[in-house]
Each structure stands twice: as structure tokens, then as C-alpha cells.
């Protein structure tokens, strides 16, 4: 089949290189089976610890499991959770998963490229691309002030929750959390996750 659009060799190279960057991060992005059958995303933030959304694990009736890209399943338990920030920290002791490279979200600029890795509609490790659409603050549920967040135009679907938002260097800059109005993806900035973890249980 001949391509509809002519892609210059440089552009083709760019697409190939993006795939290369993502390939390196894939082992650090996992699938979390908690609430709901489809499974959501999670990011190996530090050795033996996965960060995901609170709403992914809240009220999980079955035992929590984390599945890595090589297909291995690991038992997980919640170490800490914040409903306010929609964050949860899972312990996956013994899983030997490599932590993802984490970048500072403070350096993000509107218009820069971002990639989302997650499991939309249960399809594992799907990558979507977009740009940072806006940087702002959202009211925290329960009237506890504002939390900074990243808005992007990457296509997200159920199953992307808890998955990684990566910048063009392949570093995790956010955790995808939800979609507003059908086309605006919202992610929790990596700096918010970092501060939350630093405060620690």
C-alpha cells in the first residue's frame, strides 16, 4: 500500500526516534488490576513502588495485581493514598521493576510534544501523542484549594488513568487522570507526585 502522504526522510526519522524513546520507558509502565476489569495504568516511580490514581484502587474488592510489560503479574498492596490528589502508592516488593525516568513538570511549556502510555479500553501499552494544551489549576474535590494540573490534547480513554504522560525526552512529567468534555486530557504533574511522595506516610 502506498502512503497517502509523502513523509520526508527527516520526518520519518523523527517518528522512528519517538518509538525508540518510548521503547526505553515501556518496562517502567505497568498495568494495575484493581477496580474494574479492564485495568488501568501505573508508573514505577521508585524501586518496588508504583504510583497510580487513587480512583483506580479505591474500593478494589479483589486483591491488587500489577502486570509488567513482560506479562509477569505481581501482588501489590496500597502503601499510601490521597483521595484529594487522586494518587496512590503501591508496594510491589520483589517485582524488580525498573523505575521510570522522572522529569520536572515545572519546565513544561504550552505546545510541547507529549506522549501518553496506558491501556485505553483494555488495549495494553498503547501510545498516543499530542501537545501540552494548557497549564493551570483545578479545584480539589472537597473544596481544599487548587491543585496544579496539565491539560493536553492526547487521546485518552478509560484504562489510561494512572498511566504516564511523557515529554519528548522520554521522561515522566505527569500521571494521566481524566478527560474533560470529551477532548481535554488532564494529568497530575510529576512535581505534585514528587512532593506528595516526599511528604510520605
Amino acid at each position: 500500500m502506498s502512503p497517502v502522504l509523502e513523509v520526508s526522510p527527516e520526518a520519518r526519522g523523527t517518528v522512528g526516534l519517538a518509538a525508540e524513546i518510548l521503547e526505553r520507558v515501556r518496562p517502567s509502565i505497568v498495568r494495575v488490576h484493581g477496580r474494574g476489569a479492564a485495568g488501568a495504568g501505573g508508573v514505577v516511580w521508585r524501586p518496588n513502588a508504583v504510583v497510580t490514581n487513587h480512583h483506580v484502587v479505591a474500593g478494589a474488592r479483589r486483591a491488587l495485581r500489577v502486570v509488567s510489560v513482560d506479562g509477569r503479574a505481581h501482588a501489590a498492596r496500597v502503601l499510601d493514598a490521597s483521595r484529594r490528589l487522586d494518587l496512590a502508592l503501591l508496594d510491589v516488593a520483589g517485582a524488580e521493576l525498573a523505575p521510570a525516568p522522572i522529569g520536572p513538570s515545572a519546565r513544561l511549556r504550552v505546545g510541547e510534544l507529549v506522549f501518553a502510555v496506558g491501556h485505553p479500553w483494555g488495549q495494553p501499552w498503547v501510545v498516543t501523542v499530542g501537545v501540552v494544551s494548557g497549564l493551570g489549576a483545578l479545584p480539589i474535590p472537597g473544596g481544599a484549594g487548587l491543585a496544579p494540573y496539565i491539560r493536553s490534547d492526547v487521546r485518552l480513554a478509560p484504562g489510561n488513568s494512572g498511566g504516564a504522560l511523557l515529554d519528548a525526552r522520554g521522561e515522566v512529567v505527569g500521571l494521566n487522570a481524566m478527560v474533560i468534555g470529551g477532548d481535554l486530557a488532564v494529568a497530575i504533574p510529576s512535581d505534585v507526585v514528587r512532593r506528595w511522595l516526599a511528604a510520605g506516610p
Partner: protein
Amino acid sequence: MTQIADRTHVVSSLSDQFADAVERVGRAVVQVNGRPRRPSSGVVYAPTLVIAAEHAVEREEDLSVETASGPVLAARLVGRDLASDLAVLRVPGLDTEPAPRTPTPARVGQFVLAVGRPAGRELMASMGIVSAVGGPVRTRGGMLDQYIRTDATPYPGFSGGALIDASGTALGILTTGLAGGVALAVPGALAWRLAETLVRQGYVPRGWLGIGSQPVHIPTAQRAGREHETGLLIVELAPDSPAQRDGVLLGDILVALDGQAVDDGEALQALLGGDRVGRPVTVQVLRGGALITLDVTVGQRPGRAR
């Protein structure tokens, strides 16, 4: 590892370029307050002059413009053009540099960014490609010569914002008001020209004959030797309109204007551009099987009530 880092640097360069492009045009993208509770966007195209989306400027007065910082600036409506969904606002005290505009026409497949300042003075962007370049197309106010279609997400309030290329120069003015929510852009050269016309005259001249018509098939015996199979049957004549004044009758079949064949309403609209306003043109009609040539002075389409 170093080698990979060097190679993948290409992706982050492209990313940096996109962010630079948004920042570059962003200074000239303003928030336009022209309807209750739902601000829209605008582009500074000349000193103190802003192009906005006509449909988002619902009021005639009490208009204002906001930049990234600084006071809310009062704006005055210079003019509006329904056919292109563009309006021009004059904003005294606006010291923003006009947006850079590319002289190159949009190409299908090229990367684009949609940039708006929809609310809270916050700059927003989305990414896509040029999906199509088309036109002329009939719109609610007449004919639009050319449009750009993109798959970049038009967030609420993006109408009046800029569609830019990867270097941060404007390719066109975005609007979802022309085609039922679809993201279209009026190409830069056309938008800037229409804006200048609005500044000069307060309206964009569009030709008007004052007829109501419907396309009809012309039986072979009544074609008066012409080959065209269809024409426009005149079913309505506005009183004291150019067509009535210069001799067009109900029941005539319009077949040509200014030497160009007219098969349907689209063809007629395309021929009634602003350049023909005030000019006498030849109008050919079939009347009782004979071809008659009339000289009709094209009028200006009367303004429509909103």
C-alpha cells in the same frame, strides 16, 4: 546511550520548536469578551487592530480585549463579515506586536497548532495537521473563497484564534462558526485582506442582483443555440433591485453573467464578488426561447439583521 541521546534529541528539538511557535504567536493572541460568560479569542493583525470571530462578537457595544497581562482594554467594533465569520475590533492602547503571517499557502498534511486564549487570559494550544484546503464554499453570509480544515482540537473559545505552522507564523484565523462546529480557518492572506476592507469601509462588499431563483433544466428547443443544459429560473424579483431596474423579468432563465455561464446558485454567488459591485455587467437570459442580453449594474447586498 550517548549515541541514542544524540539521536533522540531530534524529537525534543521538534517539541521545543512547537512550544517556541506557540509562544511566538501567543503574544498576539488575545481574549475577546463579546458575549455573556463565554469569551473567545482574537489575533492582533495590525497595530491596535484585532481580528475576532464574528459569531462570538454578539454585542455591538461593551466589548473588551485581554492580553496575557495588563488591564482589560475597551474595544470598538469596526465591522463584521458574515460570509467569513470575521469581525475587526479597534483597541486603543493595545501595544501588542501584530502576529507574524506566513506568505506561503497551507499544504495538506503539514503540522499545525491551533492557538487560542479562551478564558482566564490563559494561552492554550492543540496540535494537528492541515486536513484539507478548499473553497469557494457557501456560508451563512455569502461565499467564502477559501478555507483550511484541520484536525487540531478547537477547544471552547478558540474561534478567532490562530492556526499556525511549526515556525509560529499564522496560516489563518480559526473558527467553528462556519460549518457546524468543525474547525476551519480562513486563510491568512484572505483574512488579512477582508480585515483591511472592514477597516476601510466597515463592510465587505458583496454583489447583489435582488433575484430569487431556482436551477432548471432547459429543453433543447429552448436553448437558443447554447449548449448549457441548466440555468436559473427567476422566481422572485426584489422591488427596486438592480435586476428589476435593469429589465430582468419573472420567468426569465438566467444563463450567463459577465460572459460566464451560470448553471446554478453557487456559480452565480461566485460571480457576485465585491469587485463587481457598482459595475454594469452583461446578464444573459432566455426569454420565450430567445437569448436576450441586458446590462445590469450590480448592487451591494443589503446588510442582514443578526
